[in-house]
């Protein structure tokens, strides 16, 4: 017999009685998902889709439109428009029966197993999934805090910040200076800052060819470094300068009023300053008391918090082991969590956790690169099994194919998140 996917999904009416007892003691077991991004939207969709109506899924997300950080650099570079990276939650609600609530979660009562929303509603849960992404570590770049984010945008949560940064680049005087304060490890999207520099360079090369780009970086090395540096040399020779820790890149402060960056005591006047501070798990993780240090430790087998087995944490907020903090990783982890949650609440079959990640980056028109790996869960962590990375000196056809593949991936992952 052929299974018909659409029929399947159509039949998500709550007709099946849950065989497992839940918090309220009756009705369908309840899952609350906080954060409708790469991790949360995927988890909500997979639980709703695969449980075929047996589980009641609520997704809490303040924004009505989710702007993906992935491809937001391509928007800055002029390869995408902003609307092409915006996604709504309509299909998750209409086709998958997910209860989408546009509000902030402001409190979690782990004993009562309930979530309080800013609007006052209290949502009970049998399992809670947290995928709130990142927040910034106060004081990590002296002189910068979120009140300075209009003068010196981070653009590390996509949307208005990204638009602002792009507008500032367009307003730079001819021959001006774009500075980036790069973040220390670990942070969201390891190649992200360097793809951004590539996209800014692409834009400036056309619009402001005498401008300069200055990267102030506390890290010795960075992701796909040889590939980026080869590409920068090839496409943007002379435009980009990077100051690493050897030359004081780890001793930096900014003054948003004066638009200056001070590097190891020497003051530079800049025209645009993209400050990407150190990161930590989205604040709600702290409120839930499931963080250790800046991140929420989880078991790779199920993505359960190591501090509360009723809570699963996904994506950037976690400390899980070897996976980079990426949208691809969050999406991959969401599927493991969805399976584990279904297994716990409805007794469905549970299989060994398996993860993968690929991060594509664009250096210039049709010059795409990628790095990826597969992972499995051990008791200790999510451990890398195998991997690959683009090579320097690859031919133009392969680079073009890599870029085209990334465009295909973007269409695929966003439909996997939002239906």
């Amino acid at each position, binding site marked *: 017999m052929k299974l*018909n*996917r659409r029929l399947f999904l159509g039949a998500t009416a709550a007709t099946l009685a849950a065989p497992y007892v839940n918090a309220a003691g009756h009705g369908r077991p309840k899952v609350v998902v906080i954060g409708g991004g790469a991790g949360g939207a995927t988890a909500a969709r*997979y639980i709703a889709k695969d449980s075929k109506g047996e589980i009641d899924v609520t997704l809490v997300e303040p924004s009505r439109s989710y702007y993906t950080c992935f491809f937001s650099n391509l928007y800055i570079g002029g390869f995408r428009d902003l609307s092409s990276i915006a996604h709504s939650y309509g299909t998750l609600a209409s086709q998958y029966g997910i209860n989408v609530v546009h509000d902030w979660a402001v409190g979690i009562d782990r004993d009562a197993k309930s979530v309080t929303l800013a609007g006052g509603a209290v949502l009970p849960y049998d399992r809670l999934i947290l995928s709130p992404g990142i927040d910034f570590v106060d004081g990590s770049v002296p002189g910068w805090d979120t009140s300075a984010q209009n003068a010196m945008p981070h653009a590390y949560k996509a949307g208005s910040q990204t638009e602002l940064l792009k507008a500032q680049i367009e307003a730079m005087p001819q021959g001006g200076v774009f500075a980036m304060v790069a973040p220390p490890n670990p942070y969201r999207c390891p190649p992200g800052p360097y793809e951004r520099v590539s996209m800014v360079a692409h834009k400036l090369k056309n619009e402001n060819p005498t401008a300069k780009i200055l990267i102030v970086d506390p890290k010795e090395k960075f992701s796909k470094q040889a590939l980026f540096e080869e590409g920068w040399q090839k496409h943007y020779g002379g435009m980009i300068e990077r100051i690493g820790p050897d030359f004081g890149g780890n001793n930096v402060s900014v003054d948003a009023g004066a638009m200056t960056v001070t590097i190891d005591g020497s003051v530079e006047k800049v025209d645009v300053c993209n400050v990407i501070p150190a990161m930590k798990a989205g604040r709600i993780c702290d409120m839930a008391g499931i963080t250790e240090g800046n991140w929420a430790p989880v078991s790779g087998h199920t993505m359960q918090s190591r501090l509360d087995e009723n809570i699963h944490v996904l994506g950037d907020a976690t400390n899980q082991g070897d996976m980079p903090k990426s949208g691809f990783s969050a999406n991959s982890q969401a599927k493991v969590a969805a399976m584990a949650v279904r297994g716990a609440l409805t007794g*469905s079959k549970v299989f060994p956790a*398996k993860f*993968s990640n690929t991060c594509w980056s664009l250096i210039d028109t049709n010059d795409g690169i*990628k790095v990826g790996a597969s992972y499995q869960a051990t008791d200790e962590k999510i451990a890398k099994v195998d991997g*690959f990375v683009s090579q320097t000196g690859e031919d133009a056809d392969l680079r073009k194919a890599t870029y085209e593949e990334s465009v295909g991936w973007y*269409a695929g992952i966003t439909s996997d998140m939002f239906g």
Partner: protein
Amino acid sequence: MIPTPHTMTYPHIAAGAHACFLGEFLVIMPPSGGVSCIFRNGSTLYGFIFHRPATQLDGYSTDNLMEYLNVYLFYITGLCALTLAAGAAQSQTADLTTTDPTQIATECGGDAGRGVALFEQNCAKCHDIAPSAQSKSGPNLHGVVGRSMGGVPDYPYSDALRAGAAAGTLWDQQNLHKYLMDPDGYLAGTTMEFDGFANPQDMFDILTYIRTASLPPAPERGSVTVPPELAAEQGDVAYGEYLSGECMACHNTNPQADGLPPIHGWDTTDFMVALLEYKLRARDNAPMQMVAQALGNTEIAALAAYFGALD
């Protein structure tokens, strides 16, 4: 904690030898001096792991010696576990059918990348490894793992190796381990000018590299067929549904959408062949090769069954 040596009787241990268990190893100190090790699993004793003659142990006090063994045996534990998992002495060549670099690394317990450098340093002066290269002063090592001793035609082997060849001895991993850790101890009369590795990990790394460098070339696209073991698998649709999550991170859930090729509703054989061709590197694309190499027959069958049943 260093256990005290005590006298034991085992048929193949010389009378009067001191022996003790150190974790999973039986350490024997024969009256002639030196030290030997045997791996045990429960009460079963497995092959001799290594031998150090007395001359190589000059200067070691008993305590030092035990400490040295502790460190050394710690390294070897991984190898023994692998050997046991494969079933003692059973899989001479069965494990050589894989072309999956990860699988090879797991089986050999090493890192091919480190192995390249170590091969250059330790072996390349006398051995080539390219598929059809002439032997240098030592025989060509392409495909040495799993082949018979003395297996390169026309190479002037030592009598010791000829004897091994005549006895049908294979260069399986266990024999290579012993040989490479202690060439003269394992094969008296060998003419290989090498004292053996001090660190077993170096040896694992080199073997990983040799296995990887000996891979058969990728088959032609279009020439791969579904092997009977895979064809016989009953694909588990529920497992396929879970595994499909990895595919759907890139391939669009809407089969009509633009983007990467849709994978819904394929004929199961075509689906299996496509994955096998990526796995065997007959098709290019690094992410797909990586994905496919992590899939065994059960997983491939499950995915084919799941996607095949969707329109």
